[in-house]
């Protein structure tokens, strides 16, 4: 492990990669601040740039920097404008915005930055401990277990979608999976579902789909509903310092939420949003009566809790990505797509085959957090000026960058038409409350899922691998439970509620 860390340090501290982290964090903060643009859209837009770098470590470091920066930027707009760009920073605005309204914007930003820094750094330490452990276990897995594990991951993502949403999330996952079967697969050497179109021969491009699912609908929403794009002057941001007492009072919160957030982040489908809301709720419940009243009115604990938790969860979400090759969230799914495009297959072999990538990413997480604290925080008053850019200029640029992203990736104008078509479909799906992240995760995992499934079928000459391998069976049972339990519990709760009403 020590050797790995040294390799990672060497790679991460090269001039090029340091510039990548710094650049990524700055770009991420800059764009993440714009209301309506979340980390997924920004990473999707940055992927063509990262891929054209050619070096997988540099690309992943850049994208991880963008990811961190975007989350930090999202917190900034939550605090300054009460306009969270991402679901993960909604809880930040509960206490961050009241603080800003009281003229303590500078302090709120500092607390957010320190909390993010601690959450991210502690998360990175935990990642260093747990990822190699999980990797060594995962090396024992065969394709049958991989297949089952991916099914568990996909089911967990659907199960976490919330009550009344499970069927829709599964539907979207399946839609992603069938889109992945379009084109010529590696295993069979024959085109499938191309409808005779040459353009579909190589399947749908992942970048186009990522843009169409996230960046384009966000931009269209900004157009259709002007109240969503709250831009304007953010006022003066001064007095970035916090007192010793304040630091002392948030320290235990940061400690607890780093751990809690990290482990929630490791679960597929849970991610930063659940971690931040849960962190906020837990801290409010365990706070003394007097402080509890402050929550929602500008409590520093209420600001530190979700900020720590969402950053720790972001780091945690790298665990399944790096060790199993299974993304647990939309953002890590996009990162996985980028890695595959760079000929790197994340999974347990990554640590053995490409230790420099594995460790460089982890080390650059520290550097990224440090850059955010040292570089971005003092620059925030200037970066916040972007909030004053009128939307009439902003929106055409966002649309242009999504177009460019899809075009650069494929160098093909047909791709742009596909982008617009998918973008319209995605917007309609969002109107009808269908979650889009499962679609992209399904699309990215589809190829691997089918490969592992086919390999197991071939090895066992049929589907007997399901019951002949106990671990596979166990995992598939877990997957079924994950999907069925939420609806079953909701149904039982309803039945009980109905019973009570009758009795009364």
């Amino acid at each position: 492990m020590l050797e790995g860390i040294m390799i990672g340090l060497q790679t991460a501290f090269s001039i090029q990669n340091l510039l990548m982290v710094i650049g990524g964090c700055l770009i991420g903060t800059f764009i993440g601040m714009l209301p309506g643009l979340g980390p997924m859209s920004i990473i999707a837009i940055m992927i063509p740039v990262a891929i054209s770098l050619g070096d997988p470590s540099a690309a992943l470091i850049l994208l991880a920097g963008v990811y961190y920066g975007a989350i930090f930027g999202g917190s900034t707009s939550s605090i300054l404008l009460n306009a969270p760009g991402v679901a993960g920073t909604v809880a930040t605005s509960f206490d961050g915005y009241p603080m800003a309204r009281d003229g303590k914007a500078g302090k709120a930003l500092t607390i957010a930055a320190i909390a993010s820094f601690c959450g991210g750094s502690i998360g990175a330490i935990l990642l260093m401990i747990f990822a190699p452990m999980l990797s060594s276990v995962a090396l024992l897995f065969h394709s049958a277990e991989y297949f089952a594990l991916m099914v568990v991951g996909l089911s967990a993502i659907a199960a976490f979608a919330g009550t009344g949403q499970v069927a829709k999330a599964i539907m979207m996952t399946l839609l992603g999976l069938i889109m992945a079967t379009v084109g010529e697969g590696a295993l069979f050497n024959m085109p499938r579902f191309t409808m005779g179109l040459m353009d579909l021969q190589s399947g749908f491009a992942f970048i186009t789909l990522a843009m169409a699912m996230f960046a384009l609908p966000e931009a269209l929403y900004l157009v259709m509903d002007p109240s969503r794009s709250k831009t304007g002057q953010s006022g003066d941001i001064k007095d970035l310092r916090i007192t010793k007492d304040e630091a002392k009072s948030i320290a235990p919160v940061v400690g607890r939420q780093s751990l809690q957030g990290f482990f929630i982040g490791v679960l597929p489908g849970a991610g930063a949003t659940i971690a931040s809301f849960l962190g906020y709720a837990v801290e409010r419940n365990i706070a003394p009566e007097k402080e509890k009243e402050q929550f929602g009115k500008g409590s520093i604990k209420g600001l530190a809790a979700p900020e720590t938790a969402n950053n720790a969860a972001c780091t945690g979400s790298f665990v399944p990505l790096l060790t199993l090759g299974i993304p647990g969230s939309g953002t890590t799914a996009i990162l996985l797509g980028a890695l595959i495009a760079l000929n790197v297959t994340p999974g347990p072999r990554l640590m053995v085959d490409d230790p420099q990538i594995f460790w460089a990413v982890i080390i650059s997480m520290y550097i990224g957090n440090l850059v955010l604290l040292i570089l971005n925080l003092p620059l925030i008053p200037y970066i916040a000026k972007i909030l004053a850019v009128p939307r009439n200029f902003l929106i055409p640029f966002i649309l242009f960058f999504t177009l460019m992203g899809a075009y650069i990736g494929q160098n093909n104008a047909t791709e742009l038409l596909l982008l617009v078509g998918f973008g319209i479909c995605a917007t309609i799906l969002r109107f009808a409350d269908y979650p889009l992240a499962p679609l992209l995760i399904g699309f990215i995992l589809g190829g691997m899922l089918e490969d592992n499934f086919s390999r197991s079928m071939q090895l066992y000459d049929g589907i007997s691998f399901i019951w002949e391998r106990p671990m596979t069976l166990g995992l598939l049972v877990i997957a079924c439970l994950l999907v069925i339990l939420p609806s079953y519990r909701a149904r039982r709760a309803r039945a009980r509620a109905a019973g009570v009403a009758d009795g009364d």
Partner: protein
Amino acid sequence: MALDRWIGLILLGIFAAYGYAAWFTMDGSLAPFMRRNPIWPSTFPKVLSVMGIIVGLIIVLGLEKSDKPREENPSVIVYRQLKEFKLGQAGLLLGLMVAYALLLRPAGFIIATVGFLVMGSVILGERRWITMIVVAGIATGVVWYLVQVVLGIFLRPLPAFMGV
């Protein structure tokens, strides 16, 4: 019927068509030696189509109930608000994107992009022509330089008939 169930119906149709292709048409062209394999190119799609049709039916028939109506959830955009939305602008911008896709090669990157950025702002109600053209021009130049020179990806700057 609510919009999400209508969409469920459309998705059900997609899965039915996909399933038809997987179950009935795909295997026809399969080479005889491949038929002895335990796995065919259509195996995985067959599984997916069955699952898709089952889940689609669950959505269309409304078997899974939500705890609270969508209207109570403030983070969700209720499609009944649609009338208040600026659908016209969104439609025009989408049309503009299609036009950009079609014109990018024939008109060249510079003309297409400056046109796109200026027209996009105009659609959104901007009328400061000089600012728009200057901003669009500078941005186009910078992006072209970055893509062509820094990233090394060919982007034809001028219209095709000008030969570059």
